[in-house]
């Protein structure tokens, strides 16, 4: 089936004229029509625009010299502004927002020939770890426990992108990662998710959550596909002053590179108490596979790991409270009806337009930035953040890459969602520290647990060394031979 191909295979097939971009796109739009009602991976499918673009892609391919992603159908997280296409951030407050401009990352993908199948679901404003906070409904993970059809969460916040890629409703998708929002859903859905170094991809036109942490990245079914997509997304952008003015390497060339002599760090602090035996076992499996590939395994320490989450839950809400101040019902978005004063309009608009979790984070952020508390919370968190970054800097003097679990559990059932927000935040315990330090990280599937659910491992690299992540990731991918697919996917009979 065309929907089973990887991006690399499809790009090859299109050039050999084995099939057309229209056929490839139609296979995906048909699958979306069949499955999206159940999975809710897309908020806004764009079948007509996709088919128009596919026709143009076929014309470009006929002429030859078409860029790498020509005719490749992708999903776009509904946090990237797309010119003329509704962009909601999964929030009621942006339910009617049609951007008159294109984000830099999506513009680069379009320039590279990509076809957009639609805008994928997410946690509201990317705040969540289970895709349960979207104003447009929950996303169902295409995987299910053996003998238990109950819906599982896909992880978050890029849960719609992860579910779409896992269920073959897109060949790849864009995600964004603030504290783990690419890597954790990738692990829950058994796919590859790469969060690049902070500054690798432009943030311009991506709806902001926490500007010192937000970073766009690819979500795909193979490491090579992630390398191909990242190459198209990355690069300097004068419109984002934090985007790095560095050349973009040929990431694909890093696939299959020899791992001999590479030093792989195993951080002691990630052996958190209460981690399941199965996660520990898959971590050990990863260590053994890399040793087998000629890597040197080195024990390292990241002593401030246990403070990562608490630091994150000061910094991220503080930045969110500032970034989300713009949603006031004046210039764009949904305005609440019936207010008689300006203040009442603001308060009603922001009460009715934001969901509970977003309101909670804005309030935490407002509190930690308010007069009298700034030093005790925000300034303190910034200092701890320096220590967290130092941990990584020191570790990378001894090793080339770190290997850890991506998440403390496999995907859980919707009805197993913790009631306490703090318990929910613990999902990101292994992904947040790298985000705080701006390091690149990648999650890839290694095996299945005893209930048949995918488990992922995370690689963390030096700043701007995504190539080592891709090299090690492709080695692990080959050794793990992960070929399992979810029961709900395009063309499956389930």
């Amino acid at each position, binding site marked *: 089936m065309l929907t089973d191909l990887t991006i690399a295979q499809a790009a090859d097939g299109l050039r050999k004229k084995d099939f057309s971009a229209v056929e490839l796109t139609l296979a995906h739009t048909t699958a979306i029509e069949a499955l999206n009602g159940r999975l809710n991976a897309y908020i806004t499918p764009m079948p007509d625009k996709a088919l128009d673009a596919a026709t143009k892609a076929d014309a470009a391919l006929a002429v030859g010299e078409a860029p790498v992603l020509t005719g490749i159908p992708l999903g776009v997280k509904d946090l990237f502004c797309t010119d003329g296409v509704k962009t909601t951030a999964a929030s009621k407050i942006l339910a009617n927002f049609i951007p008159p401009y294109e984000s830099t990352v999506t513009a680069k993908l379009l320039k590279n020939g990509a076809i957009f199948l639609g805008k994928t679901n997410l946690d509201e404003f990317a705040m969540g770890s289970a895709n349960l906070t979207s104003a447009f409904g929950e996303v169902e993970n295409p995987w299910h426990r053996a003998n238990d059809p109950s819906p599982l969460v896909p992880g978050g916040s890029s849960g719609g992108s992860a579910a779409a890629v896992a269920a073959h409703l897109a060949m790849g998708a864009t995600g964004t990662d603030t504290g783990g929002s690419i890597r954790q859903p990738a692990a829950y859905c058994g796919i590859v998710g790469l969060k690049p170094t902070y500054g690798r991809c432009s943030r311009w036109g991506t709806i902001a959550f926490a500007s010192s942490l937000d970073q766009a990245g690819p979500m795909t079914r193979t490491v090579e596909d992630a390398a191909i997509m990242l190459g198209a997304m990355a690069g300097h952008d004068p419109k984002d002053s934090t985007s790095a003015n560095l050349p973009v390497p040929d990431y694909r060339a890093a696939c299959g590179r020899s791992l001999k002599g590479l030093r792989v760090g195993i951080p002691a602090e990630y052996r958190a108490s209460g981690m399941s035996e199965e996660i520990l076992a898959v971590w050990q499996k990863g260590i053994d596979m890399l040793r087998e590939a000629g890597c040197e395994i080195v024990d390292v320490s990241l002593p401030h790991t246990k403070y990562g989450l608490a*630091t994150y839950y*000061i910094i991220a809400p503080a930045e969110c409270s500032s970034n989300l101040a713009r949603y006031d019902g*004046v210039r764009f*978005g*949904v305005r609440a009806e019936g207010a008689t*004063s300006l203040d009442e309009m603001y308060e009603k608009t922001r009460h009715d337009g934001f969901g509970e979790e977003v309101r909670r984070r804005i309030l935490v952020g407002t509190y930690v930035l*308010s007069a009298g508390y700034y030093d005790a919370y925000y300034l303190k968190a*910034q200092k701890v953040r320096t220590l967290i970054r130092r941990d990584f800097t020191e570790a990378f003097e001894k090793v080339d890459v770190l290997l850890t679990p991506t998440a403390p559990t496999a995907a859980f059932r919707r009805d197993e969602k913790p009631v306490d927000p703090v318990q929910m935040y613990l999902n990101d315990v292994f992904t947040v520290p790298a985000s705080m330090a701006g390091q690149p990280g990648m999650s890839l599937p290694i095996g299945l647990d005893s209930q048949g659910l995918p488990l992922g491992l995370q690689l963390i690299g030096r*700043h701007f060394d995504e190539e080592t992540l891709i090299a090690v990731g492709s080695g692990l991918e080959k050794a793990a031979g992960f070929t399992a697919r979810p029961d709900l996917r395009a063309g499956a009979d389930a």
Partner: protein
Amino acid sequence: MSLDPATTRRIAKLARIGLDDQEIEAVRTQLGGILGWIEILDEVNVEGVPPMVGTAVNTALAPRVDAVTDGNCQDKVLSNAPDREGPFFTVPKVVE
């Protein structure tokens, strides 16, 4: 760590999020829980540690020519206005 209702109301007011009494109480409890959990940072000695400001590895901002790079797009700017009169955004009356 527990917040009192007056502080919670003040924070909601600063954030311009209208909350009724029941919501204030729920938020008060949850924020108290989150802020209590954050207190773990009291264990960390940050004496002499500079705050990390920004994440970019190359922190120097590049200067650019002081020239207009965008503009003349009034229609685009106004295209999502919830309410407008001609080229103006409109809001409820502020001055009687």
